[in-house]
């Protein structure tokens, strides 16, 4: 139907155009139709994204499914798309998650259904655009445009303090990206194009590299988020509707991690080697400090939000281990495992935190509370739901056999090569992560029925069952057999590790 040449464009524009079509059905004039179109578009997009995986060439580090059209010739800005082993899995994660988000909003959203669904579809297209862009201005446009639907989703369908949360979210992320734009323009002046791949080959002095690295760091650290620019996330999550939280946790946070791989490491390898200690330090603070903070949360969404920050610490840690591994052992052996571990951690975190936010949404829809103290003994009235949330909680605690274990395992295995104590601190997540997750499960799920509201709870309906069931399937599949997912990254990661071994000065 479509040639390979235009597959990525299709993935970007199909949901965006679909989103406008949904808008055209009118706010609440025909919510049924709006939902049907949305679901059809989401499923079509997901189906269309599958060939990215099935026809992906495992033997090359070059960009695949490339498209290139001239956009603004005066500045040699191109509409240039393509994917490699980093972006392809993240695009699949995006299309998969969007289907679930559309289904999960089916009955929950009662007002302005068309706008809600359209916002998610448009956001999907923009997010795929971020991952597929090979031109930095195109990337930047998608990167910023993506904030708008999310801004609307939280601001419109959010909780009580949604205005504070949206402004905090918007300013934080916007401020971060401004520095990135300056860095991009600076590099354009040197390279004569905005092509990201040209930037990769750009020779930069150490001073230049350090400034560019820091500019990128601000942009990406806010997105990940890394300590200490993380405080927008718990607020945004708490106020966002369930679907918004899912997309935020499952995909948007990944853009920070993706940025490190696409920009920071290949463009400024010298500065990365120089400042890797900073990233490692911030990552470990995320794992340990944020873990303790998660332990004392009273609000389930906040707890999972903090847990997200803590888990994303593994991502940034894994990405920046290469240099200290090299210093410590004299070879780059282990660096690949760290980066692949970080990638897997991103994908897995998309499943697990998405699933946990959906679980909290299931309870919130029935009880209208996110406070742990309002719950207790949910397993008595919702046995199937209890089974699911215990599975996802165990995944969040990094149990082997679930996807979350794979990434943490690989990063810990790699980090011991850099320094025993890095591995030591990272591995404390085994204890802290289990403590905050399972303590929440104990208070919410187990025990005697706490009150009348819990006694009246109804177990999952079919729609919720399908959503949680498909996530459970992915969590177990990747946990039991991660190789098919890691395989697609091998060549790309090897290429990156070779590339960063040369500081380019």
């Amino acid at each position, binding site marked *: 139907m479509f040639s390979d040449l235009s597959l990525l464009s299709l993935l970007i524009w199909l949901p965006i155009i679909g989103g406008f079509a949904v808008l055209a059905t009118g706010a609440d004039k025909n919510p049924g139709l709006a939902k049907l179109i949305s679901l059809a578009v989401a499923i079509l997009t997901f189906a269309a994204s599958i060939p990215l995986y099935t026809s992906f060439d495992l033997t090359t580090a070059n960009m695949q499914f490339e498209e290139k059209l001239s956009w603004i010739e005066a500045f040699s800005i191109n509409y240039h798309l393509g994917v490699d082993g980093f972006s392809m899995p993240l695009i699949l994660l995006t299309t998969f998650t969007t289907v679930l988000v559309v289904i999960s909003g089916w009955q929950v959203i009662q007002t302005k259904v068309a706008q809600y669904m359209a916002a998610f579809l448009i956001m999907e297209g923009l997010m795929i655009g971020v991952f597929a862009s090979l031109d930095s201005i195109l990337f930047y446009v998608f990167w910023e445009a993506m904030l708008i639907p999310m801004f609307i989703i939280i601001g419109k369908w959010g909780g009580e303090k949604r205005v504070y949360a949206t402004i905090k979210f918007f300013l934080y992320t916007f401020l971060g990206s401004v520095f990135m734009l300056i860095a991009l323009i600076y590099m354009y002046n040197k390279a004569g194009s905005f092509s990201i791949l040209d930037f990769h080959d750009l020779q930069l002095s150490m001073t230049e590299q350090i400034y560019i690295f820091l500019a990128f760091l601000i942009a990406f650290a806010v997105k990940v988020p890394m300590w200490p620019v993380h405080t927008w996330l718990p607020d945004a999550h708490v106020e966002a509707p369930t679907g918004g939280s899912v997309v935020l946790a499952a995909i948007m946070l990944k853009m920070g991690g993706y940025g490190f791989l696409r920009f920071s490491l290949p463009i400024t390898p010298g500065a990365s080697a120089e400042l890797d200690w900073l990233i490692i330090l911030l990552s470990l603070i995320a794992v340990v400090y944020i873990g303790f903070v998660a332990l004392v949360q009273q609000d389930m969404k906040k707890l999972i939000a903090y847990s997200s920050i803590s888990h994303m610490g593994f991502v940034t840690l894994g990405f920046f281990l290469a240099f200290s591994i090299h210093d410590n052992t004299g070879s780059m052996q282990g660096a690949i495992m760290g980066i692949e571990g970080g990638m897997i951690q991103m994908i897995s975190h998309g499943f697990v935190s998405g699933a946990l936010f959906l679980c909290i949404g299931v309870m919130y829809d029935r009880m209208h509370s996110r406070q742990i103290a309002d719950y207790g003994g949910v397993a*008595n009235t919702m046995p199937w739901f209890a089974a699911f949330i215990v599975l996802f909680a165990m995944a969040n605690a990094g149990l082997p056999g679930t996807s979350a274990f794979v990434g943490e395992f690989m990063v*810990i295995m790699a*980090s*011991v090569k850099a320094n*025993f104590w890095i591995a030591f601190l990272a591995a404390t997540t085994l204890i*802290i992560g289990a403590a905050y997750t399972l303590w929440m499960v104990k208070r919410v799920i*187990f025990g005697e029925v706490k009150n009348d509201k819990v006694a009246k709870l109804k177990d999952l309906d079919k729609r919720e069952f399908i959503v949680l069931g498909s996530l459970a399937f992915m969590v177990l599949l990747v946990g039991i057999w991660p190789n098919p997912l890691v395989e697609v990254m091998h060549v790309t990661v090897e290429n990156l590790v070779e590339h960063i071994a040369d500081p380019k000065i």
Partner: protein
Amino acid sequence: MENIYLIIALAPLIGAIAAGLFGKQIGRAGAHWVTIIGVVISFALSILVFKQIVFDGTPTFNGAVYTWLVSDGITFEIGFLIDELTSMMMLVVTFVSLMVHIYSIGYMRDDPGYQRFFSYISLFTFSMLMLVMANNFLQLFFGWEAVGLVSYLLIGFWFKRETAIYANLKAFLVNRVGDFAFLLGIAVILMYFNSLDYADVFGASGNFATLTVEIIPGWEWSVMSLICILLFIGAMGKSAQVPLHVWLPDSMEGPTPISALIHAATMVTAGVYMVARMSPLFEHSETALSFVLVIGAITALFMGLLGLVQNDIKRVVAYSTLSQLGYMVVALGASAYAAGLFHLMTHAFFKALLFLAAGSVIIAMHHEQDIRKMGGLRKYMPVTYITALIGSLALIGFPGFSGFFSKDAIIESVGHSDLAGSTFAYVCVLLGVFVTALYTFRMFFLVFHGKERMDTHTRSHLKESPLVVTIPLILLAIPSVAIGALAIGPMLFGDYFGNSLAVFDEHNVLAKMGETFTGAMGFVLHGMMTPAVYLALAGLGTAWFIYMKKPQIAADYKENYQTIYNMLVNAYGFDKFNDKYFAGGARQIGMVLWQVFDAKIIDGLVVNGAARSVSWWSGFTRQMQSGYLYHYAFSMIIGLVFLITWIFLA
């Protein structure tokens, strides 16, 4: 061949999935049938494998099932290693599991979570089999955590009980402390050996024997010691060694069949199995061996003492399990791995028997577990009585019973050991024998003999348990008597374990003992000349004297030695300490980091502070835009004056 191994592991998994996901459709009987058939298949095939490996001389199988992950040139596989050690473990696990499955039909008869229960215990059997059949560290860790998960689910099986869900969380977290070190140990192994395959790692272990590493600058550590101690901390969690033992007594909140299967016979022995499997590594580190020896000895004696003051029938048996695990660990520390495994096997039978007998008593007593409210049950429950007596005699090491052979072998091997700490360990294990006999028969007499102290209603309902309960008791009683005498020759002094275990000549205490070994009968006669047997008999006699003859003595002792009594009742204060400093401390740290750093400093000072200063500054500049023409004119003139002055001065 490989398919048989796969079926052994997967049959219980299929049963678990069927009973767990389709419990409603297949019904209660369907659930126990489907799981029991799965375990029977595993058990029958395990016998076949055992026969092939041990009697037919089939060579050790070591092969992969599938590739889990390839990264950085390292291949992580799921695969099986089937040798003498594995086949013994498979037999023990599937046999005890089968007994517990059958027993549970009776014990769990009225429970609303019947299907869920059978699903869990079958899932456990699968996990435990994956653990013992692993041929690499990754899969070992999989099984290791999976049994921890099932243990969590089963301790909290009655999830409405606050005590049960407290206990399961505690069990999981304490185990995670061990797993944390275990995973680091695996990471260090991967760093040096570049493989997690047993065969590769054991084969290359000699190359790293003298290598040192400075994990703290200026403090050299042997790499082998580092690896072995990290791995052993993992074992301390799973096999409940001091100070990571605190979860095991609380785990008795789970249904009794679970206490027998998981928290006595199989899962808790995983640590012992693991260290024995890693003997090619541990042999390279005398530091680690001494550490193992001392930790085991402390557990063996001091946990046994706690059994003396417990009144809950299951808790007495639980502390006894702790103490016996200590014995197995001591054996490992003395490099008498075979003796540790031998005790693991005999203990699996007689401790499962004791737990199931305790369960039988609990059914008869209508779920009363306080031994002070029992007594005289002998005449109501003859089968339970006899089998419990067999189990108790085996536990205290009465000559001729299975426990005698395994425990005596451990004590003697420690006596022969020259490692640092072996004298201390020897004293501990000897005193432990007296203590074991004392608490075991205290319980035995209080339950089965003496005055009937239960209320009349309970008494009127007392009767022997049904056949599904008593048959497993009888089947477990047989090996509890006989397995010791049968197996001691080949297992300890023969070549039963073949190449599964590695022992250096200078550590080989069993070989020294083997020089005088003339068979099971000779071992008994030789044992009669050592202090252990008399200590056991003395313990038994003391129990009889105190609890049957002069019950007043116990009460007097409790009065006169309040401090010691309280210390024992509080289990040396480990729980209080952990609650206060670890659990409480973590919450306090969390509160400070959250409320002070995140809320006050980052958000309050920086983020909202930035917002505030913007609004302050804009408020200030807004003042200047007053809208009055003369304000603007005035500032223009001032500006002009400054500008002109500046131009002229420049």
